[in-house]
């Protein structure tokens, strides 16, 4: 069964210069595994193709069923200088939530 990431996770994005970070948490602990295996630095990089040009790091925060993604060269030069409407990348977490996740039927 395919779901949007938004259906099984919640999170928030913020900025520091040209770096955007997204913290992402499983809505229920049972979804942690699917997120861990499918929302990887590689898959996130692929997802943000055309938007994020730098490296992506993922930090696991196991006891909170979550991850912190740090995306470099993600904001078109950074809030102060970019021509983006969302200069601060406040909607980057929502953009990640568009990712489709395969869940085992249960």
């Amino acid at each position, binding site marked *: 069964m395919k779901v949007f990431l938004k259906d099984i996770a919640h999170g928030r994005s913020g900025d520091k*210069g040209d770096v955007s970070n997204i913290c992402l948490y499983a809505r229920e602990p049972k979804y942690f595994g699917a997120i861990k295996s499918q929302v990887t630095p590689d898959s996130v990089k692929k997802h943000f193709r055309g938007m994020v040009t730098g490296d992506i790091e993922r*930090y696991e925060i196991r006891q909170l069923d979550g991850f912190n993604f740090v995306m470099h060269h993600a904001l078109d030069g950074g809030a102060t200088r970019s021509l983006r409407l969302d200069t601060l990348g406040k909607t980057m977490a929502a953009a990640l939530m568009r990712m489709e996740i395969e869940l085992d039927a249960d």
Partner: protein
Amino acid sequence: MKTIRIGGGQGFWGDLNEAPVNIARNDDVSYIGCDYLAELTLSIMGRQRERNPQAGYARDFITMLNDLLPILKEKRIKVLTNAGGMNVKAAVEATKQAIKTAGLHLKVGYVVGDDVMDSILELKKQGIGMTNMDTGESIDPILPAIVNANVYYGAEPIIECLKGGADIVIVGRSTDSSLFLAPLAYEFGWKADDWDSLATGILCGHLLECGAQVSGGNYDYDWRSVPQPENIGYPIAEVSGPGELIITKTKNQGGLMTTQSVKEQLFYEIHNPEMYITPDVMADFSKCTLRQVGENRVFVQGVRGEKRPDTLKLCVGYTEGYRNTAYLPFSWPDALEKAQSAKETILKRLKMKGLCAEEIRTDFVGLNSLHGPLASDMKEELNEVVLRIAVKTKTKEEASKLSPEIAPFILNGPPASCFFGGRAKPEEVFALWPTLIPRDAIKLCAYVEEVK
């Protein structure tokens, strides 16, 4: 057991101005911290001060203070803020005036020394290179374009103000979180190398410094469930000692406090969760656990700290040309097709006018302006869409070329478009140059003045 309650009254310059008053009036706190500064704010304030020597700080703080002062006195609440921005002394003068007008007798503390704009060349002479900490580039090419240069400092000078009896502390570019760490370190006598304790104060500050973003604002988990968003309650932390705290929200107000709302704020704008670098301590939030311990009460545990860095972050703001942004809405039928056609025509017109742009960007608001290439293609027809066109140029004159090109489209362009706000105005673009400098290159001074 001694417990200190601190409110988070402001998340940025432009946040709900009445929030600190709502905290003071509806709940019981000993301190309220008000953060007004984001990365770009100081460059904007620097420009304001150039135009008017009495400007360059968050004037909204004074407006709010007029309502807050009577409650501060009655409830014995102290306020800490970085509203001083680029002109701490002018903010202090305005605060003193507000206190006198209210007929009160209070002490005002303030800190100066973060503004090193005038000593950049001197610092260079001392051998402090100020190369860009992200790119390694030399600072020399941007020297003529510098607008401001401010060092992020920690809680120590703010604690000095509190020791001097300050009821209101006004600073410039302290870190946001040190506004909250300072009163805790002062109350509990935390030492400057008591890393776990200091990290607890930083955690407290980090959770409070964005105001209601931890108490139901921007709540991705379940935004529909947030009570009374029109009257959202700002956050309050309760701290009794190192390693843990309880975070709650203002009584008799809306909003909420859940483990999910705290989670969303916990790593907001943090990179490595084990290494949140601040001037006071290297804080480690990676082992934090959260537990709901009552309605709108979350217990946070497990924060640790390690030795603070030997350097401070210096953030240099410099001017990098101009930007101009215009909007043009189109209605059904064929809204997107019309907007696309208008875009092509505007781009041709700008070329005819010889626009020399570093970058031109177009988006369709309602379709892809937020998620760009990630946005889904709309299969059904849009009711309406807004063409957005933005240019970045070296000079104001070039950027201005876009402004008169939009309105004529309402008569000359594809049918059924209308005005969107007023005529576009070019704005200055600021860029930031982050760098590290040794602690001892900076001299911060704390003062306390009695006002009556």
